[in-house]
Each structure stands twice: as structure tokens, then as C-alpha cells.
């Protein structure tokens, strides 16, 4: 029963909780982005691509300017740009939103791969050695990863789990609160929800459906790109081709599971993040010997968890009624 002991051990290890936070953060950002877009009625599977662009652009600007914050800022700008493309196709041209999202993922993967050589001088992934500088920046000078110290005793369980937190992690939770406030407490949010549910009704009251939808999609670009930037400059300090590895889609699943509500999506993101952290911790457990060749099996865990959760829970949450349907205003 070594396995059970190893599993229990994972939960006793403070590291599991701190990794859960880091694994959840990109998902929280991206799923929040998904909520913003879909609440207004535009399905956005392009999250994966927007995250990738965010990761790439932030690394590039952090590298050339030395400031990861400028990197994050430029990632947001790029994220808005990519999201605009999706908004333009789906809102103005009534395009098929899922197909357009797929196209944008491909373009993002193509562009980032294509620009590896010209921007970083190498392909595949940015070299850690050559990128000592950025590594250096991220780990020590970099205000993003210079962790915020929370007042837990250093050696206590809580101190090890949550004592050092990246400001971006905090920003994720703050964003969720802001997102919830915008959607449920402001006039803008009321209009967003009306446009996603019954755009025609909103239109007859003089609400500009197209404008509100553009806002929702562009905001999804903002959040998803920060999520992507967290993966590179916020966490690992490198950019790798295809480094988002399906997280955009897991974020979509989190959004669905969270019933298109920012807080729900956050909780679901933490669930998926913890499954990733769990697999990660279990395979490095000292109690059971795991050969490196078995690692792929552990990597499957978050995807299997997502699949089961999606299969088991989906009919029980309700998407906005006009989600994915272009609003065709007659002239």
C-alpha cells in the first residue's frame, strides 16, 4: 500500500499547495477571459492561441527591455490584437466562431514558431544558458516573480505553501473579483449578460450589441494573454514552442464547469490546477520509485480529470442562451 501512502504524502506536502497555485493561475486568467467572451455570446476557443501569443510576446519584450512588466504589458496589447481578430470575424462577419478560433490557434502556433529564430536566434525553446539574463531577472530582480511575502512563519506548513506568492497569482484572484464585480454589479455587466442571452431584446432597447460583444472578446484577450505571460516570464522564465499545451482548452472546461461565472471558473481552475500539481508531486514522490519512462502516464492525469468532469457535469450547467450564435442585424 505504498501507493496510498505516497498519495497521502502528496497532500501532506506544502509544495503540493504552492504548485497548485502556480498551475491554477494561468487557468484562472484564461477561464476568466472565456467567461468575459461567452457571457456576451461569443464562443472563444482561441484562448489557447491567445495564451501562446501572450507567453511569446512577454518573453520577447522582457528579454529586450529587461523588464518583465513591460513584457506583460506588451502581451496584453498583443492579446487584445489577436482577440480583435476573432471578434472581427465572429461579430462583424458572422463567422463560425469555433472554426475562427481554430484558425487563430493555428496562426498563433505558426507565428510563434516562425519568429523563434528571428527573435531569439534559436528554435524549439529559449536557451536557459543564453537566457541566464532573463532567468536572472525573473528570479531575483524581476518584481513579478520576486515573491510577495505573506505573514506566515517561514518554516510552518502555511509558510512553505503560501509564504511566497508571485504578484501575478495575486493579480489572478484580484482579476476574478473585478470580473465578478463588472459582470454582476455594473450597468456594463447587465448589458453584457443581456446581449449573451437575448441580443435582439437588448438591441430594441438601444444597447449596442456589437460594441458590447467586442468588449467581451477583447477582455478575453487581456486575461488570456496575462495567463500566457505567467507561463513564461511569470513562472519558468523561458518560452517554449507550444508551451501552453492545451491549457486554453482546460480553461474552457473550467469556464463550463464554473457555470460561466468568474468565481465558479476560478474554483474549477483550482481543481484542474491541483490535479496537475498532484500528478507532478506523485511522480517525484520518494516513497514510490517512478522511472522516467512512466512519466507520460502522470502527464495524462489533468486531461483525464478534465474529460471526466466535463462528461459528468456538463448538462448541469447552463450556457448563455445566445452563446455562439452570430447576431445578424437586419437593415
Amino acid at each position: 500500500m505504498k501507493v496510498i501512502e505516497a498519495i497521502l504524502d502528496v497532500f501532506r506536502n506544502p509544495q503540493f499547495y504552492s504548485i497548485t497555485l502556480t498551475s491554477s493561475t494561468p487557468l484562472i486568467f484564461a477561464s476568466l477571459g472565456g467567461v468575459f467572451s461567452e457571457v456576451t455570446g461569443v464562443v472563444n476557443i482561441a484562448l489557447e492561441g491567445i495564451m501562446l501569443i501572450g507567453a511569446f510576446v512577454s518573453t520577447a519584450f522582457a528579454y529586450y527591455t529587461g523588464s518583465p512588466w513591460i513584457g506583460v504589458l506588451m502581451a496584453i496589447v498583443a492579446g487584445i490584437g489577436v482577440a480583435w481578430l476573432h471578434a472581427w470575424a465572429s461579430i462583424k462577419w458572422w463567422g463560425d466562431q469555433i472554426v475562427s478560433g481554430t484558425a487563430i490557434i493555428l496562426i498563433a502556433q505558426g507565428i510563434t514558431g516562425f519568429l523563434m529564430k528571428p527573435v531569439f536566434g534559436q528554435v524549439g525553446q529559449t536557451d536557459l544558458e543564453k537566457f541566464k539574463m532573463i532567468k536572472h531577472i525573473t528570479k531575483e530582480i524581476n518584481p513579478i516573480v520576486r515573491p510577495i511575502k505573506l505573514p506566515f512563519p517561514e518554516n510552518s506548513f502555511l509558510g512553505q505553501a503560501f509564504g511566497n506568492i508571485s504578484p501575478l497569482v495575486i493579480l489572478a484572484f484580484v482579476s476574478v473579483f473585478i470580473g465578478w464585480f463588472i459582470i454582476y454589479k455594473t450597468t456594463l455587466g447587465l448589458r453584457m449578460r443581456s446581449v449573451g442571452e437575448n441580443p435582439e431584446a437588448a438591441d430594441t432597447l438601444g444597447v449596442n450589441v456589437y460594441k458590447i460583444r467586442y468588449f467581451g472578446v477583447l477582455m478575453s484577450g487581456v486575461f488570456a494573454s496575462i495567463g500566457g505571460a505567467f507561463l513564461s516570464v511569470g513562472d519558468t522564465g523561458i518560452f517554449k514552442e507550444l508551451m501552453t499545451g492545451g491549457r486554453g482548452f482546460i480553461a474552457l472546461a473550467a469556464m463550463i464547469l464554473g457555470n460561466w461565472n468568474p468565481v465558479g471558473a476560478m474554483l474549477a481552475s483550482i481543481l484542474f490546477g491541483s490535479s496537475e500539481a498532484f500528478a507532478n508531486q506523485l511522480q517525484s514522490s520518494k516513497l514510490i520509485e517512478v522511472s522516467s519512462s512512466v512519466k507520460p502516464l502522470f502527464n495524462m492525469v489533468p486531461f483525464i480529470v478534465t474529460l471526466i468532469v466535463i462528461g459528468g457535469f456538463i448538462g448541469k450547467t447552463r450556457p448563455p442562451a445566445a452563446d455562439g450564435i452570430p447576431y445578424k442585424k437586419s437593415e
Partner: protein
Amino acid sequence: MYEEYAVVMKGIVKRFPGVLANDHVDLFVRKGEIHAVVGENGAGKSTLMNQLYGLLRPDEGEIYVFGKKVEMKGPKDAIKNGIGMVHQHFMLVGNLTVAENVVLGSETTKGRVVFDLREAKKRVKELSERYGLHVDVDAKIEDIPVGMQQRVEIIKTLYRGAEILIFDEPTAVLTPQETEELFEVMRRLKAAGKTMIFISHKLNEVMEISDNITVMRLGKVTAKLITKETNPREIARAMVGRDVVLRVEKPPHEPKDVVFEVENLWVKDNRGLDAVRGVSLKVRAGEIVGIAGVAGNGQSELVEAITGLRKIEKGTIKLLGQDITGLDPRSLRNMGMTHIPEDRLKYGMVLQYPAYYNMILGKHWWEPYSIRGFLNHPAIFEDSRRLFEEFDVRPRNINMLGGNFSGGNQQKIVVAREVSSNPKFIVVAQPTRGLDVGAIEFIHKTILRLREQDVAILLVSMELEEVFSLSDRILVMYEGEIMGEVRPEETNFEEVGLMMAGKRLEEVRA
């Protein structure tokens, strides 16, 4: 100019691809009157009103509101000019509350950005009390009954300071009693100095509530009448262009054995609430059983359960003595049940398929259409051509895509298909919704012909006249239950209307 008028529309022309929807239409509405605009489906009434409300832009013509020439770029301009519209299909957001729906687009705020829900509720309550429009401000739209939804629509326009209210077919979804209540509200609004435009095709209602009438036909104004000086026959003639037979001839016919039987049927709706609650009924060969009721009282769910499209929670259904409870549509069709669905665009047709494929939907696996898994195209073409002739579908082009036919011809295709497979039992739901008089007559005759051929027929319709003129027996449905059974020759609209509003037959006749 036009100071004495609230609304003047002059020389309005609106073209859609292939249709001249409004052909130099003039409309003059005096201040403080209730002005009826009547016409058949497709006469151009809604198009005209949508231009007044800024949802559509006229190709030609001018609009004056309270004597001032205006140009409506969108609903916002209409609202600014004091125009409000109560839409036929309510423009309400289902997952928002009553108060949120009323203020949407002109919200009450705290500090410009934050939505002030408390203030919104207060304002809605004030309006509701002032005009006697009872609503529950905190309820979600999807949870309240149709009548209340309509009151929300009216409050919406008043909240925006409307002086001119457009009612687009407001009584279509109401019981006769609810209609009376609506008219009360309209009279109160008139007393408060509001001007109203009342769109309808129900002549008795127009006679009761309006001051003046504009009649439209095929996009043109055919008559301007003063209500006090006219009569329904005159209006009808202007509407249809000829004297109409308002009722079809129904020859006597003796029903035979019971073909179809439902016992204590329970069905849930999409939200998981009981929509059909213990319905029992029988239909005999050569008999038309009509189900009357206001839309949304479980008729759709009943039809879907009978035809295998919705899960049955409890109860049994029998066809020709066999238990068919829970069978899928394919098996039911194989046993001789067919179905003319209420929503032909959603259920009745595959719009992207050519007409000849639509002609075999639901029997495409039968010989001669399918032989050993392969489609037999020559047979499909031949039968389609024959049915096009027999049912006078126009144009006579079986290759045309389903979506390119007009509504009436689409319905003819559906009817032809369902009638031609020699059913033992047919469910006919809302067979004439949105059709013109000619098509209605044709379809009514077809249904009566089936009765002659001893088919058992279950007719579901929201049009009380239709139910009365076709049925041998009438069942009235209210909130998923049968309120009672009556024969058309032994009852009247008032009695059935009371049952539609939830009174049982015993109570009505007590």
C-alpha cells in the same frame, strides 16, 4: 405640419430581396387615440411598425412624430421621440429579473458605473402601481407567466417615457379573459393621454378597442375606416380582397373504433418542471379531437411526448391497442403515426435539403425510397413530383432548397409528406400558423379529407376559431391539465375561454 397627429408616416416604401413589403404606405394616428392597423400575415404591418420603431429603415418616405419630422436610425431614436413598442415575441432577457429587464439600456446608476438595483426596483414599483400593471420585480422573466411578461413589456415602454405605444399582436398569447384585462390597461393608458397603435388580425378585438382603423393588404393600405361607422365584414373584405367564408363546411361523419389512447400522462419541460400533468384522452378513427389552450400550457410537451420526441415520466400511450409508451419516432412512424409539427422550420424541414429530400423525411428508410440501404432516386423524384401536383406546391421545382420556398408552400410540403404516408393516426399542431387565407383553406380541407378516410386526428391549435370549426370534440388544456371536454356545437367562446384561464368545466357550468 401635422400638429394634431401623434404619428404620421407618409409614402413609406420598404423592399426586401424579392418582396415589396411596404408600397407607399400612409398612416395617420391622432393624439390620444387607439389606432388599429389590421391585415393578414404578410400584409406588411410588422414591417411598417419596425420602421416606426427604428428597427428597419424605410427606403422611401417620411415620418413625423408630434408634428416634427424625424429620422429613426435605431430604437434609441424612437425611444427619444417617445415611442415604445410591445413586441409580439416579447423582447425580454430570460435570465434577468423583471426590474433588470425594465431598466436595461437606460439603467439607474450609482456614480455612473455601478448599477443601482434598489432604485430600479423602486421606479418599476411606482409605474406598476400608477397604471395598475401588477408585476413581481424580483422574479426572473423565465419564471413568470406570459401575461405578466406582457405587463413587463408595457412597463418597459412607460419607464422610457413613451407617449406612443405600439402593441404588435398583443392578444395572440392571451386568454379571452387576459385580453379583457389588457384592454382595461389600454383604456387606462388612453385616459392618461397616451396614444396607442394596435396591430391585429382579430376583427372583434379591433371593433372593441380601437377608434380608427387602417387596413393593409399585400404591402398597401386598402382602407381607412372609423370604427364606429364600420363592421367586421367591411374590414374583412378590405383585408382579404374578397368576401371570405369564415368557416369551412364540415360534413357529418360517424367515428369508428378507438385508435389512439393516452392514460394519465406526465411529462416534464426543458427546465424539469411538470408540463403535462395526468392527461388522458382518446381519439377514434374518423374523428378530430381538438386541443385548445393558451400557448405554453403544456400542449407542445404533450405533442412531443406523443410523437416520441420527449421523455415520458409516467402514464401509457396506446396505438391500435398496442402499448407504444416510450417508443422512438422511427418505430412510431413505422406503426402508422405521422405528425405535422407546430414549428415547421425547426422540426418540419431540413432547409438545406432540396424539396425532394424533404418529401421523404421520416419515411426515407421505406421502400421504394430506400432499397437495401441505398437511396432510390428515381422513385423519390417521381413521388415528389406527384405530390407537388396534388398539393399545388409552388414553384413546381422539386430541386429547389427547402429554405427557398415561401412559408405557405413549405407547410404544403410538410402536409403533403405527412398525409401521403397513409397514417392511421396523425398529430396536427398549429397547422395554419403564419399562413394566408388561401393556404389555410387548403389545409383545413385536407384535414377534413383525412377524417373522411377514417384517420384518427389530434389537432392542437392556439386559434380558437380553427379548433371550433374543425373539431368533433374539444379538450381545453391549462397548466398541463385537461379542464374539460366539450362539443363545439354545444359550447361557445366564452365557456372555452374560461376553461383556458383555468376554470374546470364543472365550475364554468355550475
